[in-house]
């Protein structure tokens, strides 16, 4: 089946796009959460 590679490539690229997007968003969310905690803590300490 000569075009099987192309089909596999298409699926891998597609999943790659979605996975990369998901991971990027998750990473940014984790970083934001950390900063949010940090700021909240310093605010509470200040009070």
């Amino acid at each position, binding site marked *: 089946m000569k075009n099987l590679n*192309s089909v596999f490539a298409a699926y891998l690229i597609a999943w790659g796009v979605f996975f990369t997007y998901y991971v990027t*968003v998750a990473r940014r969310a984790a970083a934001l959460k950390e900063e949010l905690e940090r700021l909240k803590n310093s605010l509470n300490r200040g009070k």
Partner: protein
Amino acid sequence: MKKSSLGAAAVVLLLAAAAYAAFFIAPTDSRQGVIYRIIFLHVPSAETGLVSFFICFVANVAYVLKRQPKWDWMGIAAAEVGLAFTTVCLITGPIWAKPVWGIYWTWDARLTSTAVLWLLYVAYLLLRTLIEEPDRRALLSALFGIFAFIDVPLVFGSIRWWRTQHPQPVIMGGPGSGLDPVMRAVLFFCWVPMLALMVLLMQSRYRLEAMRGDLDIVRRESEAA
């Protein structure tokens, strides 16, 4: 945390099931051989992208009328996710076209329209990066999003009319054109995981944007303190 991992796992399972159906349940196409199986990825991606952009449109209108930040968060999440699906559609189209037509791009009406759609929402995202004030950014991008979405049927309609003036190969045939009933069932089934994936991606992007909103508030509080 646990609920979202469960959701992600469910989506992965659905995607795997869809891939299995695409490769093993759908019968072989007599003319194209195995390459046609890309249709089970290409068409649902395109349709899910359009659904995302519709959600973006609804969120945009809601923001303009209500001015609640959550609609702005929904808008950006839907636009980015829609763009991801549209990108996959635009990549898988040429991968299919090359073995079948010998060229990567045939200026097929729907693929061309999808390319314009892609440009419109890239412009939407770019616009957002160029406005600093959050309320201005939300309002102006919502207004552009509204204009962009109402343009979509006009883009698709005019390009399809243009292409019928000068007939060109049509990628994948029209919707359900000459598709074997098993193929059609698999195609429909493959749409479900795409929609589930769309919801998952939008949720996480929405949460990210909501967190940004919270961070702004806390930052302002800490500066005031």
